[in-house]
């Protein structure tokens, strides 16, 4: 299985094929469709991350000492970015998730979506993914 860095590089490679933002966005929207969708029962307040405009739900579980994320959003673009993040970070060791950064999102030209002023809840979502990693890290120990 690939580690986070390898998957992130793979994503950067895929996005480098596109010349303009429209193609990148279309690809991102496509990737959103492959997002491992959170089970309906977890689409509740406890699992929701409040952005101002789009809603995000995230669930984390532990399988073979790896953290597995499922998620969803009511906005397609938000969903696309989540799919990209989760593709890299899901099914990984807690410590690796804690060590990971989001620089690759800059590299694929989607940096603006992770700006703290953006009202989509993604910055809070990243924090939440790391929190889950911290929680499972202590469980494993």
């Amino acid at each position, binding site marked *: 299985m690939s580690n986070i860095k390898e998957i992130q590089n793979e994503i950067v490679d895929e996005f480098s094929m596109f010349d303009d*933002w*429209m193609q990148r*966005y279309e690809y991102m*929207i496509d990737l959103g469709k492959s997002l491992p969708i959170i089970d309906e029962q977890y689409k509740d307040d406890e699992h929701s991350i409040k952005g101002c*405009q789009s809603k995000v739900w995230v669930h984390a579980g532990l399988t073979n000492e790896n953290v597995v994320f499922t998620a969803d959003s009511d906005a397609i*673009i938000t969903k696309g970015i989540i799919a990209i993040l989760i593709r890299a970070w899901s099914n990984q060791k807690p410590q690796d998730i804690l060590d990971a950064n989001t620089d690759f999102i800059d590299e694929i030209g989607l940096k603006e979506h992770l700006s703290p002023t953006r009202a989509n809840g993604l910055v809070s979502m990243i924090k939440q993914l790391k929190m889950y990693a911290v929680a499972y890290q202590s469980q494993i120990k």
Partner: protein
Amino acid sequence: MLDIKKIRADFPILNREVNGHPLVYFDNAATSQKPQQVIDKIVEYYTMYNANIHRGVHALSQEATDLYEASREKCRAFFNIPTAKQCLFTFGNTHSINAVASGAHVFVKKGDEVIVSAVEHHSNIVPWQMLCERVGAYLKVLPVMDNGQLDMNAYHEMLNPKTAFVVVNHISNALGVTNPVKEIIAGAHKYGAKVLIDGAQSCGHMKVDVQDLNADFYTMAGHKMCGPTGIGLLYGKEEALNELPPYQGGGEMIDQVSFEKTTYAGLPHKFEAGTPNIAGGIALGAAVDYLNEVGMENIAAYENELLIYGTEQIKTIPGAVIYGDVAAKAAVISFNVEGLHPYDIGTIVDKLGIAVRTGHHCAQPVMERFQIVGTIRASFAFYNTQEEIDVMVQALQRAVKMLS
């Protein structure tokens, strides 16, 4: 007829590009752009006249005071306020509302009712909720109908001798619908209730005559009428303003101060504690001059043309739903495309250089009423054009195609 080309040349920001496209600015309900004349006035003030006002005997302070007071006079005339002392400078529309709500316990007693409409933004809900909690009064909601208009039958039934205050916006920021404020005011007055009209969305887009409306209080936002941010106005009937206790204590709002007792200055200074936004006040006068030169009737007529054209064009997009699609409204179109999230559409059209607002527009109860997460809001000003509307509609079509 307006010379739009000439008008556009006065607004330097309209020349800039966003994401490689010429800016199409359709977020005028959030804030208007500023003409060079207003920008120059701010620079001129700090270059030539900067001094604290109403206190120095030196020439600079005197000149700055004269400019500030001349601007107050311009604002007074613009809204047909009877006297300059009833035309209070505040730091913005929200400040104006809070200045009234925080002292409104002189009008609203325990067990009384305060009516707010269902189409208010948070600024005109929360201060009244706080008032009701403070005095033990009840907040009543004037309902809105499916077409975005207030339910006036319900309103007249809600009024009763316990009604002490009614607060309604002149034009809803979330839907753009113009509310029948004259009827609302007259109805409230029959029961002796005071009325505050939130004029944030009307002040830069239509001729407002506070005496004709007969409101007890009327609030305005300088930055939504081509003026700078951080300056607003509050109009009040003289008697009501005299009765209203001051909102903030400080310099300038006093008559005599001792540690035993302070007596307050008269109007307008009673409500203008501390050093005001002097540059903002003076520049607002320049904005008023500018709007007068273009003419508020011309502005309203031209913006209505944009509204009609924009509404027609948006309706050509399959699945487009407009909220508040009635005749009496400002040039604000709040809409969704069925099956698509407003955030997604807003993100794509931004990439194409178009500034529209998406989300709940700081009016969550309105969104809840229509059971939507938010809308896309295109709001026009007199410097916008039909060509820009065409560009927006093309961008919307592109967004719909990408997202569907």
